[in-house]
């Protein structure tokens, strides 16, 4: 290895949420990893709301934890408020959402990287791909130095061609006060990538002391804190043991020996600043008024978004306040959440007021909201426009179809959100490593995880607006729950090899106990009814059963309850999966020449040629390709296979 001409196996460009997940995954898989960033202090920074999770996004966070990603732990250990959304709508759509301490989050990421062998941080701006005879050999920085690497992961976020808009003022930059990457954008253009512009925005930041909290509603966190990661669950359980001397409702401590006070002793470090859920802070709820709406309406022409300054498409589902006012004129008020960005942080994030109005209009607008009449601005809200690359130019492994050994993750693929970015970063980092090892890439099917849905949607359908996850994007919502992520992804985690043997066998063991208990409940009778039947009754919980197993953990009990109560529906979904995966099993040969298939409609043929689906199932999901096209393709494939 010492004579190896490359400095790195995997070079990650950008150190946002996609970037650090990619770098950590690759390093943990034994790859010599370079992490290229403009500013090492900015690694893991939260550009927008310091909040992780929420509907469908929390599923991604839990999946990352199940596979060996960092996001869940990082959020849990820096969390200052924990909530669960959609509690009344059943386990399939339930979602945790937490707020992190804005400063602690990146500090922890940096500490994790510092403690991780195989990662080297390089402070520079990528300018060019280093190509030899069309083969990727690394990166050339803007200042002209060459970094040789066998694979490259691009995770530039909003920095690629970034342009900030505050009203009619336009600033070049990747984040307020930080430079963007412009040469790299040109590089991609010259290489012939199909590119587009997207837009996202962020609200102003207000001074904590300038808010009149009496005029708002309190929004406390939930106790005990609903955490994402198994590590945080374990710590909470240990803490309970220490505090109360008995273990009641949570995880069994790991089998490893070691002093029981281990975790508590280590609190206060950047890795574990406090016990998750300790000293939760409160958020506050207020709302826009008629006056807010009048101010916005009167100044729409001066908004970057509506004044025509921005060409990129905005996030439909996380709309700016201008968007909400224009599209929902009938609604008298919209929620505004007052979220402290940290315990000791003076910044307040007024969630729901993202906009691109001129600063003086923003001040007027914000001050028309109850409780914010005397709000002091620390930073204005702004919109940012950036380049993205059409993600249909990627394989499911997130490797580029255009340039081998080049991977892409995060907003460059058209997504929005930390969770979506981190998920792709992790997959790209893992697959860069898999490729170098000569192993088959990590692919997650649509029925195996939201990560699978995310990537399949991107590479199959592409996107022309910032893509965010929804549970409705998944066909099999009842199977893809956040609570069962460790179980459904166990075999994938094993193949990746980041989780330790002990962690894997713990999940194995839990799964075994769950299966055994379900079997017992189905075959043990009480007054003529099986315990399983009794448990299925509405409102019935495991702890209400006669003759129950007292040694089960809360996690195990939760799985048993859901598996039995939703058994019929879960089976239905499995049947549907079997039916639909028939098409997924029909591979489309690489040598198929779509131009020869004259019966295909022109539009379908062009789309198929561009996206080059790997199987009939994927082809059938391309928008604009209709059932008759699939029938024609199916005929051709059978013929090619003789």
């Amino acid at each position, binding site marked *: 290895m010492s004579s190896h001409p490359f400095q790195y196996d995997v070079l990650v460009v950008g150190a946002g949420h996609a970037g650090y997940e990619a770098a950590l995954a690759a390093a943990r898989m034994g790859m010599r990893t370079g992490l290229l960033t403009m500013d090492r202090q900015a690694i893991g920074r939260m550009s927008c709301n310091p909040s992780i999770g929420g509907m469908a996004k929390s599923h991604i966070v839990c999946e990352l934890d199940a596979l060996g990603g960092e996001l869940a732990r990082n959020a849990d250990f820096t969390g200052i408020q924990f909530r669960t959304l959609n509690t009344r709508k059943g386990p399939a759509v339930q979602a945790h959402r937490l707020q992190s301490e804005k400063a602690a989050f990146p500090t922890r990421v940096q500490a994790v990287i510092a403690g991780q062998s195989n990662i080297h941080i390089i402070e520079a701006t990528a300018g060019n791909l280093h190509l030899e005879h069309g083969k990727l050999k690394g990166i050339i920085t803007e200042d002209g130095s060459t970094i040789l690497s066998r694979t490259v992961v691009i995770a530039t976020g909003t920095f690629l061609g970034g342009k900030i808009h505050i009203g009619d003022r336009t600033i070049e930059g990747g984040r307020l006060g930080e430079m963007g990457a412009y040469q790299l954008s040109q590089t991609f253009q010259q290489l012939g990538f199909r590119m587009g512009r997207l837009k996202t925005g962020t609200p102003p930041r207000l001074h904590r002391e300038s808010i009149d909290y009496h005029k708002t509603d309190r929004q406390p966190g939930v106790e005990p804190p609903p955490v994402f990661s198994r590590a945080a669950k374990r710590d909470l359980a240990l803490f309970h043991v220490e505090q109360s001397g008995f273990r009641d409702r949570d995880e069994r401590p790991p089998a490893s020996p070691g002093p029981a006070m281990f975790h508590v002793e280590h609190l206060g470090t950047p890795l574990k600043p406090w016990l998750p859920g300790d000293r939760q802070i409160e958020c506050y709820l207020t709302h826009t008024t008629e006056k807010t709406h009048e101010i916005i309406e009167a100044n729409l022409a001066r908004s970057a978004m509506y004044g025509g300054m921005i060409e990129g498409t905005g996030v439909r589902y996380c709309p700016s306040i201008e968007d909400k006012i224009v599209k929902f004129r009938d609604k008298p008020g919209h929620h505004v959440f007052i979220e402290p960005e940290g315990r000791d942080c003076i910044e307040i994030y007024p969630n729901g007021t993202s906009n691109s109005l001129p600063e003086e209009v923003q001040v007027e607008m914000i001050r028309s909201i109850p409780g914010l009449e005397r709000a002091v601005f620390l930073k204005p809200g702004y919109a940012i426009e950036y380049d993205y690359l059409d993600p249909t130019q990627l394989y499911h492994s997130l490797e580029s179809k255009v340039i081998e050994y080049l991977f892409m993750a995060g907003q460059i693929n058209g997504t929005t959100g930390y969770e979506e970015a981190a998920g792709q970063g992790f997959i790209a980092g893992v697959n860069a490593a898999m490729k170098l090892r000569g192993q088959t890439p990590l692919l997650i099917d649509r029925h195996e995880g939201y990560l699978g849905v995310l990537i399949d949607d991107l590479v199959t359908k592409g996107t022309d607006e910032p893509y965010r996850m929804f549970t409705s994007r998944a066909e099999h919502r009842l199977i893809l729950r956040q609570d069962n992520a460790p179980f459904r992804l166990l075999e994938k985690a094993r193949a990746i090899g980041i989780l330790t043997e002990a962690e894997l066998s713990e999940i194995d063991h839990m799964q075994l106990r769950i299966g055994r208990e379900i079997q017992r409940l189905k075959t043990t009778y009480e007054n003529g009814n099986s315990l399983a039947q009794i448990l299925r009754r509405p409102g019935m919980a495991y702890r209400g059963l006669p003759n129950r197993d007292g040694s089960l953990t809360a996690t195990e009990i939760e799985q048993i309850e859901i598996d039995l109560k939703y058994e019929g529906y879960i089976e*239905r979904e499995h049947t549907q999966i079997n039916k639909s995966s028939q098409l997924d099993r029909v591979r489309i040969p690489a040598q198929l020449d779509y131009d020869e298939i004259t019966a295909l409609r022109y539009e379908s043929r062009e789309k198929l040629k561009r996206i080059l689906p790997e199987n009939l199932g994927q082809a059938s999901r391309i928008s604009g390709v209709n059932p008759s096209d699939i029938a024609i393709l199916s*005929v051709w494939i059978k013929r090619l296979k003789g």
Partner: protein
Amino acid sequence: MTAPVPAPDATTDTIAAIATALGEAGVSVIRISGPQAFDIADRVFACKGEPPSQRSAGTFVFGHVVEGQTTIDQALCLIMRAPHSYTGENVVELQGHGGHQCAKRILRCCLEAGARLAQPGEFTQRSFLNGRMDLVQAEAVLDLIHARSARAAAAAMDQLDGQLSVQLHQLYDRLIATAADIEATLDFPEDELPETVMPALIERLQESRAQCEALLDTWDEGHLLRDGAVVVISGKPNVGKSTLLNGLLGRDRAIVSDTPGTTRDTIEEDLVIDGIPIRLIDTAGLRITDCEIEQIGIARTRNQMARADLHIHLIDASDPSDTEEVDRLLTNQSTKLLVIANKVDLIEASEKPPAEFSISATQDTDIKRVKRYISKKLSAQIDLHSRPHATISERHRDLLHKADSEIREVLSMLSTSSEDLVPLASSRMRDVLDYLGQVTGRTYHDELLNNIFSRFCIGK
């Protein structure tokens, strides 16, 4: 996965078949469709002036079908160019003189010139694959071919025009919108959605059910028009069933003799009465017998009676003991039963047999009375005065039934206050859409396509 119908090289090669019925006729048509249709026409068809391939679409030319130096037939050659043809491909039709031998020779020339013999339904399948019609319309083509009465043909034409498709697409679109709203209630915080979302979507689901049921209601008529009404004639041996059958058909189909048990197997014949296609079934006489063959026949009779749209039970007016079976039938038979006393010519006018009416099956006037009665009875199920309209088929009925009962489930789930049922309801909505998509072909199913196109005859 089951193999789909298309031949291995479907959609790339050129197919040919005789499109007209077998037998003697004035004209027979050989249809050629595919990329080489014009090349093949040039090779087999000789005419003055430009060859077929150089002629413009929508024209025809007189000439000869030739095999080498030999002229096989005089013919008209019709030119249609993609996509403006039945299949959406280049199509040539050769209209030769009738006669099956002649048509077969023309077809053979085409095949030798490079065409492949079309499989059943392949022309229509290509039309579907090329987006010329949806599945429901393709099925209408089949109905049109098989139409046994003018009304059935008119209904099929209505369906081919897209009348049924339009309704189904409307229903589908309405349900897609509803499904999207249900999803929205799961993916967005409540306060971001208008409060009226739930009541509005429940209302839309109810409308969809009503539409579903209205479509399902067209089945009775559709079934009668497509499959014909099944009219079963039963009765004791030698009561005159075969005589009645022959009378209704207007020809001697069944052997009539004085020997009881002459008809051992059921005899099925088609006829049309007042525009209603009818399948008339003469059954083996019902009696206790040791003869194994006759026993099988009798078992079959009971079967036929069960699925009849109209059941005519004949009794012998001259035999007062012949009432057992009537009593039995009357207790468990419905409005579909008609008891007719036959051989009324053998009894005194004053005696009144226990039947709705009495006939002598050998009398033409009595046969006419029976026909009128059959027509009246069956037309209760078809409104013959309404304009013929598209009706759903067995396949549609099956899928619509499934969709309808899923919608009912969804409605009951959404009508409760337990919000944890909403994700389950949304899962069921996806099934609803899948079922409806299968009706028009908006959902891709290999088997489905297989199923639908294999029922076509060659040439269509």
